[in-house]
C-alpha cells in the first residue's frame, strides 16, 4: 500500500466515526416529527369516578377474566397491571378529594422496550401503538427497560407471552376506538391524534386554570408518550413517576450502539492498513 491509499483509508475511517453520531440524531428527529400523527388518549383524571368500566371493557376486548367492578375493596391498595389485567384504576386520597387514575402502557413515542427488544417482538407501530408479537424469545429485557414497569410476563404459562396494553391494536385496525375509551361513561378518556389532544388538554387547563394543575403528563416525559394525563393535583400525589426526565430512553444508548458497528469495522481496517504499510516499508 502506498502513502496515498493509506491516508485515504484513515481519513475515511475518521469521517465515518464522526458522522455516525449525526446519523443517530437525524433519525431521532425524524421520529419526533412523526409523533404528531401518532394516535393518543387524553385522560382527564378530574372526570374519572372510578367505575372501572375501562377495566371491564379491556378484559372483554382481550379475552381476559372479567373483573367484578362492583367490588370497591380493590381501591384499598394501589394495584399494578398484571398478565390478566392490562389496565387498572387506582384511587388516591388527596387534598382535593379522592382521585381515580387509570394505569396502562403509556405507549412512549420512543419506547425503551421496543429499542431493547432483540427480536423486534416489541414494536412501535407507525400509527403510534407499542405492540407485542409472538416471535418473542422470552428474555424479558422489555420489562427491565420500561420506565413505567408495564410489560408483564406469564410465568405460569407453558407458552408464556408478554402481556401489556396494546392500544386495542385489532380494534384500531378495524377503525374502532380502544375498548376502554368507548366504555368510559364520563368521557374521561378521549381518543384522537396526539397533537390534537395536547391542544385539547391545553385548552382545558387554560379555560379552567384553578381546576387543573398546569402540566400535561406525557407531553414531554421520556420523550413524550401516547397517553396524556391532566389532573387537579401535582402528579406525584397520584402515583406518577415525576423523575423520569424528558429524554427518550433509547437516546441514552443510541450514540454508543450506533458507534459499535463503525468501531468493529473501522478499527480492524485501521490496524490492517498500518500493518500493510509497515510491511511494505520493510520490503
Amino acid at each position, binding site marked *: 500500500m502506498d502513502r496515498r491509499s493509506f491516508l485515504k483509508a484513515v481519513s475515511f475511517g475518521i469521517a465515518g466515526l464522526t458522522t455516525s453520531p449525526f446519523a443517530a440524531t437525524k433519525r431521532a428527529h425524524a421520529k419526533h416529527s412523526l409523533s404528531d400523527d401518532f394516535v393518543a388518549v387524553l385522560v382527564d383524571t378530574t*372526570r374519572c*369516578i372510578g*367505575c372501572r*368500566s375501562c377495566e*371491564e371493557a379491556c*378484559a*372483554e376486548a382481550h*379475552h381476559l*377474566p*372479567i373483573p367484578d*367492578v*362492583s367490588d370497591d375493596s380493590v381501591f384499598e391498595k394501589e394495584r399494578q397491571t398484571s398478565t390478566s389485567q392490562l389496565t387498572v384504576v387506582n384511587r388516591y386520597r388527596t387534598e382535593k378529594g379522592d382521585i381515580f387514575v387509570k394505569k396502562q402502557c403509556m405507549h412512549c413515542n420512543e419506547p425503551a422496550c421496543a429499542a431493547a427488544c432483540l427480536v423486534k417482538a416489541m414494536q412501535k407501530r407507525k400509527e403510534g401503538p407499542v405492540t407485542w408479537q409472538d416471535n418473542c424469545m422470552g428474555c424479558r429485557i422489555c420489562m427491565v427497560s420500561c420506565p413505567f414497569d408495564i410489560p408483564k410476563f406469564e410465568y405460569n404459562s407453558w407458552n408464556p407471552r408478554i402481556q401489556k396494553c396494546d392500544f386495542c391494536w385489532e380494534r384500531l385496525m378495524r377503525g374502532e*376506538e380502544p375498548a376502554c375509551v*368507548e*366504555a368510559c*361513561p*364520563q*368521557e374521561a378518556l*378521549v381518543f*384522537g391524534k396526539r397533537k*390534537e389532544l395536547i391542544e*385539547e388538554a391545553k*385548552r382545558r387547563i387554560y379555560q379552567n386554570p384553578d381546576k387543573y394543575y398546569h402540566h400535561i403528563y406525557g407531553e414531554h416525559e421520556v420523550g413524550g408518550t401516547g397517553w396524556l394525563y391532566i389532573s387537579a393535583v401535582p402528579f406525584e400525589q397520584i402515583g406518577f413517576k415525576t423523575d423520569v426526565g424528558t429524554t427518550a430512553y433509547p437516546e441514552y444508548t443510541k450514540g454508543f450502539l450506533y458507534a459499535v458497528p463503525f468501531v468493529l469495522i473501522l478499527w480492524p481496517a485501521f490496524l490492517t492498513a498500518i500493518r500493510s504499510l509497515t510491511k511494505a516499508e520493510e520490503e
Partner: protein
Amino acid sequence: MKRKSHERKGDDAVRYVAVIFGICVAILICGRAIVVLPQDAPEVVTLDTLSKRYEPVTFPHMLHVDVIESCEECHHAPSGEISACSECHTTPLDPENRSKLGLKGAYHLQCVGCHQDSQSGPTRCADCHQRKDVKSIGTRKLEAR
C-alpha cells in the same frame, strides 16, 4: 334513590299539582311566555341510546323539575330553547369539536357531577342502571376463542 321511586307514587299527585300551581303563578307574575311548560314535560324519560353493559336508565324527570330551580340548569342550550341532550351532543363525540361533550359524557357528567356537587343522588353505576349480564358476554367470547 331506589327507595324514592317506590315511595314517590303516593305524593306524586300533590307534588304535581303544587308544581303546576307554582308555575301558573310564575307566569301570571312574570307575564312572560314560557316555551315549554313543566306540565308538558315528561314525567319519566328513558335514556336508552347507549346501553351496552347496562340497562336503559329510567330518569325521574319530574322529581328533578321539582328540586332544580331552573330548566336551563340542565337544558343549557345557547338558544334558550328546551331541547333534548341528544339534539346537540352527538354519539360519539365530534372529533372536530372536542370541547363539546359527546352524548354519553354529557349525560354522565351532568348527572354524576350535579349529584356529587350537591351530595345527593346516586353516583355509582348500578344506582341508576340495572346491570346487564356482562359475565355471560365474557364467557361467550372466551368460548369463541
